[in-house]
């Protein structure tokens, strides 16, 4: 490992995992953490518990803001464990000089998103730090949810299972990148930032029992599929043309040399299902406006264990690897 933390250590990919193994697991590993799920199941599996911190530039972006994001992020981690989000804590680190009006707007956005999830803030904390100590505003939220769908786990996948993605991938990452300082791209692209519990609940109400679900945040679809392939010791074969990607995301990726599958999402999740549930699940998910492009993208096989393969339309195959490094535009 390098002597100092680099930005690559926060990428949700390989370096991030090294940091977790090398420092945090080294000292803190226990039965809960070793499962490395989005949220831990506690109290005999009745409750799900998770935490997440949020820093984003710009604070307000097309399709959301840090307030909406800090609720979606934590509640989605609960939803992915089949839990209905109930109780949330909210901790804010605010830079001296931050505009009161902006803070108010962010908190209103938090309130609105809590209503969507059906959760409430039960404890909070504020710290104000001298100018320059944080970049405007950092937020941490933790959440507790009540498990309504049991038995969801990354080690559940078996040969023959289907992989479904809830909508087109890469919108959040591409939108944020396009809005970033120094990248002058004009685009109508919106982040996919959204709460996923209503969708999970709809699946549950329709009698569908996903084997595994995960929201494809940092590291994108590629990271989720690679983690699953490793955790379940299987191969996931993805049909490239079936991955839904919108034109704007494709365009931005073409320009900067990114892979849409490695871009972060904030309201897109991947499901592993038994084949018999696929049709119904897609039907249910498509009833949500943003999920019009929900699709089955692959199947679980045993060809290259612990690997994800991508099949092209002209019958060639390649690995879809775990994203590594900081996301940097290629040179030429």
């Amino acid at each position, binding site marked *: 490992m390098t002597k100092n933390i680099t930005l*690559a250590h926060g990428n949700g990919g390989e370096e991030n995992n090294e940091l977790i193994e090398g420092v945090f697991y080294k000292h803190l590993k226990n039965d809960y953490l070793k499962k490395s799920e989005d949220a831990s199941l506690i109290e005999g599996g009745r409750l799900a518990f998770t935490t997440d911190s949020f820093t984003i530039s710009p604070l307000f972006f097309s399709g959301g803001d840090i307030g909406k994001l800090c609720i979606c992020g934590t509640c989605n981690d609960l939803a992915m464990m089949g839990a209905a989000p109930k109780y949330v804590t909210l901790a804010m680190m605010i830079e001296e000089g931050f505009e009161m009006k902006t803070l108010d707007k962010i908190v209103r956005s938090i309130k609105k998103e809590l209503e969507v999830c059906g959760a409430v803030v039960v404890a909070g904390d504020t710290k104000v730090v001298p100018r320059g100590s944080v970049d405007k505003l950092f937020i941490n939220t933790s959440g507790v949810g009540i498990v309504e769908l049991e038995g969801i786990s990354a080690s559940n996948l078996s040969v023959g299972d289907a992989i479904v993605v809830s909508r087109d991938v890469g919108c959040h990452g591409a939108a944020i990148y396009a809005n970033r300082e*120094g990248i002058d791209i004009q685009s109508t692209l919106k982040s996919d930032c959204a709460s996923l519990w209503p969708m999970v609940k709809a699946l549950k109400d329709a009698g569908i029992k996903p084997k595994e679900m995960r929201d494809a945040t940092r590291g994108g679809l590629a990271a989720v599929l690679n983690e699953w392939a490793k955790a379940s010791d299987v191969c996931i074969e993805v049909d490239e043309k079936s991955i839904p990607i919108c034109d704007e995301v494709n365009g931005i990726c073409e320009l900067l040399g990114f892979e849409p599958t490695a871009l972060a999402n904030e309201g897109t999740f991947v499901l592993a299902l038994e084949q018999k549930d696929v049709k119904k699940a897609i039907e249910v998910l498509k009833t949500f406006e943003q999920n019009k492009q929900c699709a089955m993208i692959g199947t679980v096989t045993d060809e290259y264990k612990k690997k994800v393969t991508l099949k092209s339309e*002209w019958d*060639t195959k390649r690995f879809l*690897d775990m994203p*590594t490094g900081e996301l940097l535009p290629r*040179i030429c």
Partner: protein
Amino acid sequence: MQKQPDLFKVFRNPEHIKALAKLIKKESKTKIRVMEVCGGHTHTIMKYGIPQILPDNIEFVHGPGCPVCIMPKERIDHAYILSQQPDVIMVTLGDMIKVPGSHGSLSEARSRGADVRFVYSPLDVITIAKENPEKKVIFFAIGFETTTPMTAALIDKVVKLGLKNVLFHINHVTVPEVMEELLNSRDEHVDSYNNRIDAFIGPSHVSVITGSKVFDKFPKEYKKPVVVTGFEPVDVMEGMLMIIRQINDGRADLENQYKRSVSYEGNIVAQNLINKYFDQKDLFKWRGLGNIPKSGLKLKDEYAQLDAEKIYDNVLPKEEIEDHKLCICGDILRGMAKPTDCQVFGTACKPSKPIGSCMVSSEGACAAYYKYGGVLR
């Protein structure tokens, strides 16, 4: 908003790709080794699994056309040391900040407190310089002919605006000179590299600037077919078919598959801008390949006041550094070995912990093999 015409889907059309694969299979007779000079092509070939649909008698030899990969440690060390100087903002293009030198990469320099930034357009350096008048902004300029005009345009603007706080560390290199080196050089292991390369897939973006004319001498003097080819899979397949037809006919011609962007003369405005600010360097050291005559550029003497290498001459080391013993990037860049021939490939050397330069950039042959699974065939 008006719907933009689609710029790439037709060039990834599976029907076209399959049809070209069929034609190639039918027409390919002899065993040939084709060097794709440019890293962009290596990336396309691996990403789209092109070798899987070509007959076995066509072998790709991956060339040295990845600007990050060929950057020797000496130059990276310069960048690192410059980033440590007081009141310096170091600016470079994306990928470059990951490349490890003897002291670490620019990304590590940043994590240790240096002000290192990457820009997508070099002209953003102007904004950074204006916002930080008390700092020296050093642009670490890298790349082949593709990115040289962007640096030249930045210099032009800096000169015209009379900005006093922008300096340049120039590492621009040129393609035809390294291709010639590959054909001319000899090694104890083989009688001549010349024998290892039967034809070239000529670079796409480089040729947009230089025009295909810079490759004239390869068919004429070396009897090697050159087909300037686009970066999409349909382009590469068509370029390959054109090469096969030349070989079948016993011809060695300069042909242009990438007509939608490349002309014989190229971008004259860009060429003039380059000639205004740059001279050829007598020698430029390429990682793995050593010193190659006339293959790099430097600022013209009259712009010495902008040259970070001259201004910081007293802190920049001049000693040569040996490449890592286990790394065979040199052989890979010369087309002598495949990434999978390397004993540290995928074990000690990975994209997250590169030992050799070919693993650093996504366009490097090793990174492409690692990422896309060079084993799938």
